[in-house]
């Protein structure tokens, strides 16, 4: 379709080709996103897999599940019954307003949790389930001491005697024992409500099951606004809340607030600066074009390569592509100053080196074993490439007005900010050595998971209080127990529980939930049945005689023992009482290699109220037992975050070393002048963090990656075009715009964004300050030193 007049030149063809590629990308993206963005939010999806991890990962996910879909409200007031009704009705009404509903169910009446009688489910297993107290009683005197209580049960008006099926009330004993074992049992029905009791007051309990994800905005909105309204109307009621949905809602609200303050501030600032310098809204569009081109190019290809996109990839990757605005700024500044004399060719070496250096720095991460990091690197590198191609192929072809003010401004800036002198290499080296030693001595690292948790302290406190009152746990610390068979897993759990309960008796503060307490191992169930046979001998006859019941009943009762089934884990978990423990059982785990030693069944034993001083003892216990490992979820994720951080650091360092060789090939003894702005700024940031006592974390380090990319571009251009005022203007604009885009995040209340922003704020300012001091001496140019 080309017309005859403009010749079919090579750049023209390339520009059209690039347009076709982007169009294909856009179509591909539309096809890929037809079913929504396949996004992944799990932090652990960013991290490498090792041999043990898949199992631990499953354990983690399963233990955390109940915390994710469920929320708990605890109410306390002087008019508890009325207030609870009001709140429950308000929540139900709010659920009716949305379609589809966000609330799957809400339990708060005393009848809500008592749908099924556990007797029906567990009745047939009762002869194999003996409480420790009953076991001891039978072992002591054959069970004679149990006759008296059984008699009382027969004649009490509240008893439910079954002289044949269960003359000694074994099932009742077992259910009472289960009440103590199962966490939920602290909940008591009272006055038509579900209540919890502590030393001071009674709380009414509302348990909600979400029908949607806790990150769903409609669900968050409906829930929090209903509760807020209730609190406004009933200021005397004190309310405790627990559940991921509340934390997610707080996070979302905070993010929204910051988008309107920090985000809008940065955007207005950016537009104002670019309009001030270039005096043209069209130029503003040209600046954004490379960013759009970059993301459009990177997104479909990354999706094709990885199948799904991690949200962190999208967030940080898009920021890294933001470096591409540098290219557009350089082209635009030169064009604005040089007017019609502008040619792209002199800029090409700088632009290309800028691209290659950034590509190297990011692609180095693609070689790491971290899947998330690889994805981020590929995404950023593709994006940069796309942006660069857009700048080089399209921008020169787009007519853009060159306002004389830009030229005047660049000269003015040059005069005002360029120092007469240069930083002597020796002094620079001395500074660098000082900083390195300071960083080595002082800088600490912090990989704690708190960085990912933006929840305010008051909400965390409520969360803890609810968990404590409910006797539940978030499953942060647990033993993972594996064995070749289900029976062996249960036996190992019993042994573990025995040790822990001995510790408890010694006064160690510790609570735990043991699946083997509710499902005894088969051999224990066998032994229990033998004891029950003993109990059904002499003691049973005595009982019937004293109650005045016919003794033929004894023979009938003994008949029931003949085919008493063994309770296995899956049968227990299928009962109404056992459902709550489903999260403790991983069951048969598929192992890839078929070696016989491989554990095949796994269960968890969660620990609560663990004092920090107890942790080494817990770890030692796991080491001495076969198939038992101690897992601290928070600790493990923190460790993985630390690994992520170290991997980034080493691979980027290696990339920079390789880059130095490449730069030395072009710049020879001026190489240090190219590297000084980025590396000096990074060193400066680390030094300031060290002096201020702020530990380095994965997010501040990601910020340093941005500093590296922008600093390298600045270093390259300042050496390539040492005497050009327009280059200095472009460098200044690039650091200023990046400062606005990322540096302002330092004021965010979200820890992750705050640290990222802080690194950028300090680092970018240092880049800008360093460039003038290390630029090559006047009168020299790149070609000369070669």
């Amino acid at each position, binding site marked *: 379709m080309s017309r005859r007049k403009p010749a079919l030149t090579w750049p023209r063809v390339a520009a059209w080709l690039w347009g076709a590629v982007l169009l294909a990308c856009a179509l591909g993206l539309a096809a890929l996103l037809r079913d929504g963005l396949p996004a992944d939010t799990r932090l652990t999806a960013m991290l490498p897999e090792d041999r043990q991890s898949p199992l631990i990962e499953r354990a983690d996910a399963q233990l955390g599940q109940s915390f994710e879909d469920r929320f708990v409200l605890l109410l306390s007031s002087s008019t508890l019954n009325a207030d609870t009704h009001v709140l429950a009705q308000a929540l139900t009404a709010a659920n009716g307003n949305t379609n589809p509903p966000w609330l799957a169910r809400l339990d708060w009446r005393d*009848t809500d949790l008592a749908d099924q009688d556990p007797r029906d489910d567990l009745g047939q297993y009762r002869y194999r389930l003996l409480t420790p107290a*009953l076991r001891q009683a039978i072992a002591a005197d054959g069970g004679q001491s149990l006759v008296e209580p059984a008699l*009382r049960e027969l*004649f*009490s*008006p*509240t008893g439910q005697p079954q002289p044949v099926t269960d003359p000694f009330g074994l099932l009742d004993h077992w259910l*009472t024992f289960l*009440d103590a074992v199962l966490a939920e049992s602290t909940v*008591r029905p009272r006055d038509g409500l579900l209540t919890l009791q502590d030393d001071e007051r009674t709380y009414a309990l509302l348990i909600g099951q979400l029908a949607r994800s806790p990150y769903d905005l409609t669900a968050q909105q409906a829930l929090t606004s209903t509760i807020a309204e209730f609190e406004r109307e009933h200021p005397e009621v004190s309310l405790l809340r627990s559940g991921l949905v509340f934390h997610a809602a707080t996070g979302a609200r905070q993010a929204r607030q910051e988008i309107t303050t920090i985000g809008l501030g940065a955007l207005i600032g950016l537009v104002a600066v670019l309009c001030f310098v270039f005096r043209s809204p069209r130029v503003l569009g040209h600046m954004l074009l490379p960013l759009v081109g970059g993301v459009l190019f990177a997104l479909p290809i990354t999706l094709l390569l990885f199948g799904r996109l991690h949200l962190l990839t999208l967030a940080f990757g898009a920021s890294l592509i933001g470096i591409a605005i540098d290219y557009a700024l350089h082209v635009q500044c030169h064009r604005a100053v040089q007017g019609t004399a502008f040619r792209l060719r002199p800029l090409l070496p700088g632009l290309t080196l800028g691209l290659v250096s950034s590509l190297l720095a990011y692609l180095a991460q693609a070689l790491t074993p971290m899947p998330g990091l690889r994805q981020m690197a590929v995404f950023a590198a593709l994006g940069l490439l796309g942006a660069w191609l857009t700048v080089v192929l399209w921008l020169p072809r787009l007519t853009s007005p060159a306002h004389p003010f830009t030229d005047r401004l660049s000269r003015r800036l040059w005069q005002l900010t360029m120092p007469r002198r240069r930083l002597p290499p020796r002094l620079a080296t001395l500074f660098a050595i000082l900083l390195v030693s300071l960083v080595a001595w002082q800088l600490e690292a912090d990989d704690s998971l708190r960085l990912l948790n933006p929840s305010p302290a008051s909400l965390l406190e409520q969360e803890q209080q609810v968990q404590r009152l409910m006797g539940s746990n978030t499953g942060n610390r647990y033993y993972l127990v594996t064995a070749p068979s289900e029976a062996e897993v249960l036996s190992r759990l019993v042994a573990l529980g025995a040790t822990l309960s001995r510790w408890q008796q010694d006064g160690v503060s510790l609570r735990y939930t043991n699946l083997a307490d509710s499902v005894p191992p088969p051999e224990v169930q066998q032994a229990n049945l033998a004891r029950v046979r003993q109990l059904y001998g002499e003691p049973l006859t005595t009982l019937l005689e004293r109650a005045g019941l016919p003794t033929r009943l004894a023979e009938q009762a003994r008949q029931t023992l003949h085919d008493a089934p063994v309770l296995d884990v899956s049968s227990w978990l299928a009962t109404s009482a056992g459902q709550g423990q489903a999260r403790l059982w991983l069951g048969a785990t598929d192992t890839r290699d078929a070696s016989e030693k491989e554990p095949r069944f796994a269960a968890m034993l969660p620990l609560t109220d663990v004092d920090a001083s107890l942790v080494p003892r817990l770890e030692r216990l796991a080491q001495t037992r076969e198939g038992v490992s101690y897992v601290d979820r928070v600790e493990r994720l923190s460790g993985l975050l630390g690994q992520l951080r170290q991997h980034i650091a080493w691979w980027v360092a290696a990339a920079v070393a390789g880059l130095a060789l490449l730069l030395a090939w072009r710049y020879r003894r001026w190489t240090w002048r190219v590297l000084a702005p980025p590396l000096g700024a990074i060193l400066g940031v680390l030094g300031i963090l060290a002096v201020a006592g702020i530990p380095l974390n994965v997010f501040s380090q990601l910020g340093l990656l941005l500093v590296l990319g922008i600093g390298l571009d600045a270093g390259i251009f300042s050496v390539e075009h040492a005497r050009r005022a327009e280059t200095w203007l472009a460098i200044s604009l690039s650091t200023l715009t990046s400062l606005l885009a990322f540096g302002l995040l330092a004021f965010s209340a979200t820890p992750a964004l705050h640290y990222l922003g802080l690194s950028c704020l300090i680092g970018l300012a240092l880049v800008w300050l360093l460039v003038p001091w290390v630029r090559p001496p006047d009168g020299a140019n790149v070609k000369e030193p070669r």
Partner: protein
Amino acid sequence: MIRTLLLLLIGLPASALAFTLDDLQARLNQTDALAGRFEQQRHLADLDTQLTSRGHFRYQRDERIVWVLESPIEDRLEFTPDSAANIDDSLGGNQRGRDQVAALLLDLLGGDWQALQTHFRIELSGDARDWQVDLTPLSDALRDRLSEIRIEGGEYLDDLTLHAANGDRLHVRFFDQQPAMKDKDVTP
């Protein structure tokens, strides 16, 4: 005694009109404390046997009922709204079930229809001198265990029958009932 007479006089005009659940509640609540004897018969359907026990009781409204078994065994049970624990023994069966039955017993003796209405459909028949109340469970969960409760009486509650879903029946007859001093020691 004078107080009872007075209350009876106040109660008389109401009995001339239709006798309502509110009237019955007022009637049952006239006495803060009550003492008397009981005979309990438990019919076990699938064994076709009877378990019979006798003893005396003391009921204190909204507080507790003390149940003293005299034959065939001697035992003392105490039920309160919060707990129906057997004060003598800790190996006493399933706590939740006992609590619920004890709470039910206290509600029935006190004629607390408001509390009972959440679980039962309540029907009153008869008049002030000879009334019957039938309670039918509302929820499936409760119906699985209880099919019907029937209480009968005149001045006091005289008969209580619980029909379990499995055909078992608990019948308690109260007799020799007298108002008792509220703060008197409850031990027999």
